């Protein structure tokens, strides 16, 4: 199963972080961390050791350029490379027992096994792998007489860091997966919505052409006024051309962006001097907009401002023209009371009829209204250049995505709990072996105070004050490393500083990375200075304080990097959604238009061609024009009444000279086909009895005494079902 883009990004970033930390560990262990009594090991093993720990760094680099399957394989490779040294060491020690000394630091200093296991298989496998490795290392340490306090303390610190890494990796991967799943849902929803809107837009375009040109030609042809024959012929030719080119992109002169801005400025000024008009044009923005699009945008903007004036009097209203590389957007917004758009019935066409309908009726144009009770109203009108790839959303649409750091709730709690317990165990142990037991006790209190200052609610970002207090206590914990007997400096492997850095990692994860970074810098700096003042050697200071420094700084870099990653993932998602939406729009619009062209051409094409020929019409042909004009009108205004046998009855009635009008005045109300058929039968029976004059058939709005009404000049009746 392939993984999504966001998850892939996060896996790559995590591998990058693992590689960087591993490299830092190699450099530290090979340069500053010395062994008092190193275990004698063959040279090939030492080469293997360094080689294996270089693998995650190499993997991290390669992973940035390959696909998801290769990233998976590389992650497993890095994991295998991380466990090979300790496994081979076990074989070496079992095959050749009796060796005594300290295990190489590298064997236990790396957290890459935990991290790569978490990335490759998830937290559970990572826990098992980490536990097994720690147990194996301690067993080997016991075998070679290295199970000394330093070893235990060191490995415990590594364990705590591993726990944090597993928690972080798992949560981030889940977060990436959630973003991808949300993207898939958003893509599907955007495609569905765009397709529906495109079909509606296509219907609007077809309707506009029918109303503008076709009905005019048919109506006048039916009237049979000889003086108008030439004009009717011309009008029919225009109508036929418009119907047949309906599915083709509209060709019209362009309006320069600057002229569009002038028109919009004029509209804003005409509406009210209080309307704030502004333009925001990016470099490389489109230079012009098709005239049809410009007209629709300006008219819809005028309507939007008029609506604001009507429904949100006294509100702050703005009109902004965005010029972008792939099109233009016009946003009319007010901070008025807004309204619940879902509560507006489909019969209330104020919003859809004028603003949305008018804009969507033009090729490559879209409109969207965002509002809510008490939330103001924002109308976005857009023309997208079909020659440019989609991307306008990037600049205007805020796409919310799960923030990785915020997704850490349960994992942070677990990691923190285990970390605290481990540190506590370490502190209690050190209190039993050091000369001044009060120092580790003070360290426990300082770490506890730091955590308490932060608060035990992982989803909440601590206030600045709380974060500063937490950092201050962590600094105290770090500085305690320099208090006590200098000869015991390396005895506890600086657990105070590590614990302080660990607490600062939590602070960084909870949304205070810079205060955490400050805490680590000040804590390590003061601890180093105090240690130097105590006469501790530089090598010891570096070897003890390097780890907390790497932990603190590394964690902050990771947190900041991942926050940027989250934003990038959200942007990628917006781009994907926008592209899918644009494709779906164009596909659906064209399909709908082609279908409508086919239907209209079949229905009226022949008649329009006949009219366009300019040849005199026979009485029958004029009669056919009457019938066609009526049928088209019924199709739009009569909607669900345009069905047999009523279609036949209206033809017969119009042939008798009856002026038939059909209204579907309950457009949003579902009525079953069976009932509609009954209404059609009932109405056609009535209509067949109307000899002349007028007839009005109507589906009634809801909550009326009947479902439909039929009225002629002599009688009227209701259909009650």
């Amino acid at each position: 199963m392939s993984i999504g883009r966001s998850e892939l990004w996060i896996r790559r970033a995590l591998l990058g972080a693992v590689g960087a930390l591993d490299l830092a560990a190699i450099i530290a262990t090979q340069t500053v961390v010395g062994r008092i009594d190193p275990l004698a090991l063959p040279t090939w093993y030492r080469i293997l050791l360094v080689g294996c720990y270089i693998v995650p760094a190499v993997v991290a680099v390669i992973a940035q350029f390959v696909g998801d399957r290769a990233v998976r394989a590389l992650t497993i490779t890095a994991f295998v490379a991380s466990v090979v040294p300790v496994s081979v060491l076990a074989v070496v020690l079992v095959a050749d027992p009796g060796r005594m000394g300290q295990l190489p630091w590298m064997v236990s200093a790396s957290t890459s096994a935990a991290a790569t296991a978490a990335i490759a298989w998830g937290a559970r496998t990572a826990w098992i792998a980490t536990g097994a490795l720690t147990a194996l290392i301690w067993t080997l340490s016991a075998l070679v007489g290295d199970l000394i306090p330093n070893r235990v303390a060191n490995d415990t610190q590594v364990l705590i860091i591993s726990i944090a890494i597993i928690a972080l990796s798992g949560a981030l991967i889940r977060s990436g997966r959630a973003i991808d799943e949300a993207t898939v849902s958003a893509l599907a929803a955007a495609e569905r919505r765009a397709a529906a809107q495109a079909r509606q837009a296509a219907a609007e375009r077809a309707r506009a052409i029918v109303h503008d040109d076709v009905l005019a030609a048919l109506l006048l042809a039916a009237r049979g006024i000889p003086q108008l024959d030439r004009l009717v012929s011309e009008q029919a030719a225009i109508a036929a051309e418009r119907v047949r080119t309906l599915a083709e992109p509209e060709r019209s002169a362009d309006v320069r962006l600057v002229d569009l801005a002038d028109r919009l400025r004029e509209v804003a000024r005409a509406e009210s001097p209080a309307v704030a008009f502004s333009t925001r044009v990016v470099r490389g923005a489109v230079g012009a907009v098709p005239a049809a699009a410009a007209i629709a945008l300006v008219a819809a903007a005028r309507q939007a401002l008029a609506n604001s004036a009507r429904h949100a009097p006294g509100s702050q209203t703005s009109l902004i023209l965005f010029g972008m590389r792939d099109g233009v957007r016009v946003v009319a917004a007010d901070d008025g009371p807004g309204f619940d758009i879902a509560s507006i019935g489909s019969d209330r066409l104020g919003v859809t009829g004028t603003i949305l309908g008018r804009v969507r009726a033009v090729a490559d144009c879209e409109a969207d209204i965002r509002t809510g009770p008490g939330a103001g109203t924002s109308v976005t009108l857009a023309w997208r250049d079909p020659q440019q790839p989609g991307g306008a959303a990037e600049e205007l649409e805020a796409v919310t995505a799960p923030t990785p750091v915020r997704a850490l709730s349960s994992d942070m709690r677990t990691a923190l709990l285990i970390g605290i317990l481990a540190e506590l165990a370490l502190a209690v142990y050190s209190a039993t072996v050091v000369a001044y037991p009060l120092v580790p006790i003070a360290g426990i209190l300082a770490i506890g105070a730091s955590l308490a200052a932060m608060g035990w609610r992982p989803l909440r970002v601590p206030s600045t004050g709380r974060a500063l207090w937490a950092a201050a206590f962590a600094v105290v914990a770090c500085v305690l490393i320099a208090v006590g007997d200098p000869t015991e400096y390396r005895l506890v492997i600086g657990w105070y500083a590590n614990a302080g850095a660990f607490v600062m990692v939590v602070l960084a994860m909870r949304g205070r990375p810079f205060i955490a970074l400050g805490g680590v810098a000040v804590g390590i700096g003061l601890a180093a200075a105090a240690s130097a003042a105590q006469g501790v050697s530089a090598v010891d200071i570096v070897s003890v304080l390097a780890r907390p420094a790497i932990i603190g700084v590394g964690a902050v870099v990771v947190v900041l990097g991942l926050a940027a990653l989250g934003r990038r993932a959200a942007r990628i998602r917006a781009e994907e959604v926008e592209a899918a939406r644009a494709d779906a729009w164009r596909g659906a619009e064209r399909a709908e238009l082609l279908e409508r062209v086919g239907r209209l051409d079949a229905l009226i094409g022949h008649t329009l061609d006949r009219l366009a020929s300019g040849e005199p019409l026979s009485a029958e042909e004029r009669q056919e024009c009457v019938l066609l004009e009526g049928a088209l009108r019924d199709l739009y205004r009569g909607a669900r009444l345009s069905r047999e046998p009523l279609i036949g009855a209206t033809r017969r009635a119009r042939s008798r000279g009856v002026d038939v009008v059909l209204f579907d005045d309950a457009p949003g109300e579902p009525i079953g086909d069976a009932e509609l058929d009954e209404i059609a039968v009932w109405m056609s029976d009535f209509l067949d009895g109307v000899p002349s004059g007028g007839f009005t058939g109507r589906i009634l709005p809801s909550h009326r005494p009947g479902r439909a009404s039929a009225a002629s000049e002599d009688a009227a009746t209701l259909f009650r079902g």
Partner: protein
Amino acid sequence: MVDDHAVIAMAVRGLVESEPALAFVGHAETVSELFRKVGPADLVILDLRLRDGSEAVRNVERIRAWGAQVVVLTSGEDPYLIREVSRADVLGIVRKSAPPATILGAIAAAARGDSIATAEWAAALDTDPDIGSAPLTAREREVLALYASGLGAKQVASRLGLSENTIDDHLRRIRAVYHAIHRPANTKVELYQRGVEDGFLPGPTAG
């Protein structure tokens, strides 16, 4: 006449000129062109949907400001557009496909300053969700619904046992109320005035 289809304008011209009491002043494709090209007129017959993208409501307002009354011609399109224009100060809305005698009768009535009630107009108002909150009496709602069903003034009067004059009064009040419920109220004072005019609030009393 303002219509971007010359053939429609010519047809209407023929109708108008067939009535001795009326004179056809001129034809323009847009309202702006009307002001430039055509001389003063008592009545403008306006196409509901012009291809220049202008709004019917704004067109009506401009023509009213110019000093002429307005009758709107419609192909019978969606009721929202008819509602929109009904909120402006128009004398009536007439379907282009109505029998020529009906169109001419409507134009002649409008030229006399009379308002015209048609089924298209009544159906559009009758389905406006806002009409539910308008201060119309039950009788007025009944008149509107009957008109929307296609009955004429005579039929409605006979069905309700009222005189045609009373029906005309009801129609005038329906028109006025509908016009009033969509007027903007920019200040609290205006809002109060609208409320008093529309009957939502009691008027100020002496003392």
